[in-house]
C-alpha cells in the first residue's frame, strides 16, 4: 500500500574508497601525537582508541548500506519480483550477506587486537599492533570490493525505477509489441513515452497518471510480450509479466486489428490465451487499436471468431469478486490513437470497471460497517400532497420592478466607458458649473497677463477705479511739471572759459604726477641751476601773453637785472675772509661768458670731466667722477668669446649637503 522510495539509499563507496574514507577519518579525528616517553598506559590508550575508532567507522558504514537496501521478502511482491527480475535475487542477497560477514569480521578483529593492546609493553609494540589491526580490517574491506561495486550499480538502477503505488487504482496496458500501448498512454496521461515503429521501443515499465471521477488512477505501460514459454522470456518481458501477476489492476489487452505491428490476429490471440492465467480476478478489457487502418466489422470471419473467443474468455471473470462486465460493450472496445476516436471511451470503461470492483471489495470488507455507521442521510417523507412553492413579499417584487425601470439614467462612468475608457476620456468638470450665463462655461480663463496674476485684480468695479486713477494722472500733469531752476545757463564765452580752466587744471595735475614719479630717479636741483635753459624771457613772455598781459615791460626788467649783465653779488661768510668758492667769473667779461655758455653743447671737451656743473645736481667733483665711472661700466661691452654667459646654467653649489649626507626617508643611499 505504500509508495517505495528507492532514491533515499545512500551511495555505496567502492572498496578502496571506503578504506580511504575510514582511514583518513581516523587520522583526522583521533589525536596524532604520542611520544616514547609518555606513560605506557597513555600509549596503550592512544592506540586502542585508533583501533576502536576505525572499527566503528567501518561498521557504521557497512550497517548503513545493509539497512538501506530493501529486503526482498519484506517488500511488496511486485517489487520483490521486479528486483529479482532485474538484479537476480540470489546475487543481491549474497552481496548483502557478504557485507554483513565483513562487518562481523571487522568486529572480531577489533576485539582481538584491543585485547592484545591492553598488554602492549612498548610504544613500538603498540604501534605495530595497531598497524596490524588496521591492515586486517582493510584487507577484509578489499575482499568485499566487488560486492560493493555491484550494490552501487543496483542502487543507481533502483533509483531510476518508476515509483508505482501498489495500493492505488491501476490500469495495466499489455499486448504484443508495437500495438499502440505507449501511444495510448501518451494520449490519456501527461507521460511522454517514446513511440517508434520498431518493436521493443519500450524496454521497461512506465507510469502515467490520469483522473476519473475525482480519483487518481495510475496507468502502467509495459513492454510488449511475445508468445513464449515463461522460461524463455528475457528481462524486459519479465518486467511486464511481473506487473501483470503482482499488481491488482484493470488490464487492457491491446489488439492490433490491422496486423501492422508484425503479428497476425491469430498470434495475438495465442498470446492472450497463454497469459490469461495471470489475469486471475482482475477486470479485463480487450481493446482493438488502429481502427483507422482496419475496423472490427471489416475483419475476416476467422479473425472475428478469434476475437470473439478472446472476448468470451475475458467475460469469464470469477463471479462474486466484482468487476463483472455490465454488458458486452464493456469488454470489447475499439479505438484509434491516431484519430483519437474511442480513446476516452476506453479509459472511462476501464476506470469504471476498476472502480466498481474496488468499491464492491470495500463494501464486502470488514471495515465497511464502521464507516457506514458514521454518517446518515435523512430523507424526510412527505406529509401530504400540498404544494409549497417559494415565497417573496410583494414590496420586494415592486422594488425590483422599479429598479429595472430606472436603468435609463446614464452615469459619468457610462459616458467614460463609451468614449474610450479611463485613460482616453477625461470628464469635463465644467459641465455642472453654476454661472450667470451658461455660455460662459467653456471660457478659457487666463491666469497671467503681462507678468501679473489676473486673479489678484478681479474686482466688479475695477473700471471705475481705473477711471479715477486716470483722472488723477491728468490732474497731476496739468498742475505743472517741474519747478524750474532760477539760474540761467552759462554764456558761450563762460562755457569756453570753464573748459579752459578744466584743461589747465588737468595739465597741472599731469605735470605734478610726472614730477613726482621722476623725483625718485633724478636729483631735485633748485631752479637757479637751470641746465636745460628752460627759464628764458621768451618763455615768460609767451606765458604772460597767454594770460592776457602785455609782457614787454616784464621782459625788459628781467633782462636788465640778469646775472650775466650785472654780475653776481659777492656773498661774504660771517666770520673772516673765507675764499669765495662760488665765484664763477674771474676776469671774464659778461659777454664772453654768454658766448661760452651758448656754445657749451658743442664744446664738451673744453670742460674737464670732473668739473661740477651746477645744473646737474652733483654735490662735488668726486661724486660726479663716481657717476661717470658707473655709467661707463654699465655701457661696457662684455667680452663673451664663447664663454659661459648669464643665460647659461650655473650650478651654484656643486655638492649640496642635503644630497650628500644623511639618511633617506625612502630609498637607498648606495649612490650619491
Amino acid at each position: 500500500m505504500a509508495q517505495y522510495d528507492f532514491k533515499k539509499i545512500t551511495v555505496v563507496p567502492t572498496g578502496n574508497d571506503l578504506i580511504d574514507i575510514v582511514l583518513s577519518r581516523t587520522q583526522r579525528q583521533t589525536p596524532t601525537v604520542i611520544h616514547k616517553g609518555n606513560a605506557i598506559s597513555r600509549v596503550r590508550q592512544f592506540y586502542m582508541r585508533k583501533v576502536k575508532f576505525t572499527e566503528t567507522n567501518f561498521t557504521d558504514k557497512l550497517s548503513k548500506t545493509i539497512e538501506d537496501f530493501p529486503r526482498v521478502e519484506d517488500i511488496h511482491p511486485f517489487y520483490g519480483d521486479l528486483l529479482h527480475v532485474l538484479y537476480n535475487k540470489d546475487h543481491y542477497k549474497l552481496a548483502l550477506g557478504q557485507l554483513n560477514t565483513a562487518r562481523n569480521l571487522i568486529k572480531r578483529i577489533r576485539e582481538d587486537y584491543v585485547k592484545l593492546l591492553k598488554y602492549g609493553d612498548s610504544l613500538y609494540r603498540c604501534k605495530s599492533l595497531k598497524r596490524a589491526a588496521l591492515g586486517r580490517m582493510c584487507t577484509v574491506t578489499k575482499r568485499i570490493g566487488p560486492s560493493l561495486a555491484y550494490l552501487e550499480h543496483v542502487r543507481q538502477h533502483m533509483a531510476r525505477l518508476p515509483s508505482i503505488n501498489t495500493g492505488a487504482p491501476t490500469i495495466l496496458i499489455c499486448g504484443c509489441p508495437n500495438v499502440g500501448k505507449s501511444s495510448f498512454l501518451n494520449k490519456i496521461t501527461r507521460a511522454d513515452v517514446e513511440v517508434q515503429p520498431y518493436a521493443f521501443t519500450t524496454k521497461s515499465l512506465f507510469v502515467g497518471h490520469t483522473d476519473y471521477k475525482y480519483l487518481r488512477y495510475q496507468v502502467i505501460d509495459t513492454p510488449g510480450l511475445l508468445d513464449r514459454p515463461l522460461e524463455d522470456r528475457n528481462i524486459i518481458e519479465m518486467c511486464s509479466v511481473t506487473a501483470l501477476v503482482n499488481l491488482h489492476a484493470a488490464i487492457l489487452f491491446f489488439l492490433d486489428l490491422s496486423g501492422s505491428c508484425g503479428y497476425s490476429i491469430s498470434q495475438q490471440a495465442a498470446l492472450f490465451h497463454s497469459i490469461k492465467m495471470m489475469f486471475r480476478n482482475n477486470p479485463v478489457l480487450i481493446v482493438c487499436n488502429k481502427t483507422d487502418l482496419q475496423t472490427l466489422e471489416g475483419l475476416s470471419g476467422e479473425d472475428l471468431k478469434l476475437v470473439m473467443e478472446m472476448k468470451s474468455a475475458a467475460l469469464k471473470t470469477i463471479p462474486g469478486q466484482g468487476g463483472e462486465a455490465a454488458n458486452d460493450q464493456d469488454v470489447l472496445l475499439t479505438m484509434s490513437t491516431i484519430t483519437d476516436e474511442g480513446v476516452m471511451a476506453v479509459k472511462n470503461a476501464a476506470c469504471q470497471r476498476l472502480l466498481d470492483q474496488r468499491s464492491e471489495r470495500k463494501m464486502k470488507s470488514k471495515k465497511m460497517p464502521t464507516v457506514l455507521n458514521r454518517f446518515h442521510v435523512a430523507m424526510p417523507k412527505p406529509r401530504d400532497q400540498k404544494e409549497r412553492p417559494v415565497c417573496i413579499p410583494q414590496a420586494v417584487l415592486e422594488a425590483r420592478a422599479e429598479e429595472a425601470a430606472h436603468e435609463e439614467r446614464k452615469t459619468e462612468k457610462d459616458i467614460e466607458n463609451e468614449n474610450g475608457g479611463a485613460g482616453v476620456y477625461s470628464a469635463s468638470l465644467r459641465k455642472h458649473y453654476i454661472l450667470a450665463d451658461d455660455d460662459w462655461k467653456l471660457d478659457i480663463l487666463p491666469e497671467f497677463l503681462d507678468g501679473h496674476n489676473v486673479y489678484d485684480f478681479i474686482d466688479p468695479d475695477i473700471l471705475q477705479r481705473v477711471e479715477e486713477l486716470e483722472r488723477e494722472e491728468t490732474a497731476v500733469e496739468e498742475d505743472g511739471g517741474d519747478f524750474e531752476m532760477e539760474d540761467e545757463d552759462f554764456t558761450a564765452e563762460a562755457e569756453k572759459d570753464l573748459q579752459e580752466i578744466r584743461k589747465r587744471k588737468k595739465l597741472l595735475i599731469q605735470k605734478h604726477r610726472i614730477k613726482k614719479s621722476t623725483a625718485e630717479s633724478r636729483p631735485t636741483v633748485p631752479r637757479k641751476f637751470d641746465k636745460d635753459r628752460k627759464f628764458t624771457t621768451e618763455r615768460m613772455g609767451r606765458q604772460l601773453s597767454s594770460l592776457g598781459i602785455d609782457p614787454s615791460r616784464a621782459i625788459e626788467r628781467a633782462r636788465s637785472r640778469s646775472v650775466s649783465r650785472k654780475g653776481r653779488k659777492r656773498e661774504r661768510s660771517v666770520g673772516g675772509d673765507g675764499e669765495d668758492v662760488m665765484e664763477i667769473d674771474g676776469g671774464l667779461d659778461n659777454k664772453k661768458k654768454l658766448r661760452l655758455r651758448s656754445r657749451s653743447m658743442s664744446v664738451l671737451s673744453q670742460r674737464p670731466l670732473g668739473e661740477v656743473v651746477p645744473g646737474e645736481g652733483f654735490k662735488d667733483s668726486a661724486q660726479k667722477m663716481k657717476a661717470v665711472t658707473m655709467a661707463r661700466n654699465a655701457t661696457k661691452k662684455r667680452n663673451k668669446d664663447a664663454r659661459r654667459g648669464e643665460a647659461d646654467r650655473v650650478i651654484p653649489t656643486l655638492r649640496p649637503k642635503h644630497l650628500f649626507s644623511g639618511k633617506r626617508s625612502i630609498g637607498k643611499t648606495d649612490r650619491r
Partner: protein
Amino acid sequence: MRLEFCWFCSSKIYPGHGIQFVRNDAKIFRFCRSKCHKNFKMKRNPRKVKWTKAYRRLHGKDMTKDSTFELERKRNRPERYDRNVMENTLKAIKKIDKIRHDRAADHIAQRWKPKAAKERREARKELEQSISLIKAPLAIQSQEPAITVPKIKVKAPKQQTVEDQLMEE
C-alpha cells in the same frame, strides 16, 4: 498657477523656475534662482544687498507708496466667474500697469533732478575762483574794470643787509 515673488530679490518667479524652501515653522521661502538661494543660505539680509528690490524700496530709490498697488491684492476667496468682469479686468490691468510704470519713472527722474542744479552751482564757483589760471587779474581788470579780483597778499622774504647781520652778532 500663480506668479510668486522671490523672497530675496522680489522678482517674479514664473512656473518652472526657482526653488522653494519650507522651514520647520512652515514658512515658505521662494527663490527665483540659485543666486538668491545661495545668498539666503549665507544669511544675508536683502535689505542690505544693493541690487535687491527690498534695499531699493527701503532707501527710497524706488516708489513704495502708490494707489496702483492697492488694486493688486491677493484674494483668498474665489469669485464666481463673470465674463464681463473678466474682460474689464484684463483691460484694466493694462492701464494700471502703464500708469504704475509712468509713476515709477517719474519717481526716479525726480531723484535725479537736484543733480543738475548742483552741477551748475559748482561750475559757477569754479569759474569764479579759478579764472586766474587762464586770465591774469591785470588783464581782467583792464578788460572789465567792474570786476575786482581778490588781491592775494604774499609775504616777501626780508633781505638781510650787512648792517642787520652785524646787528645780529
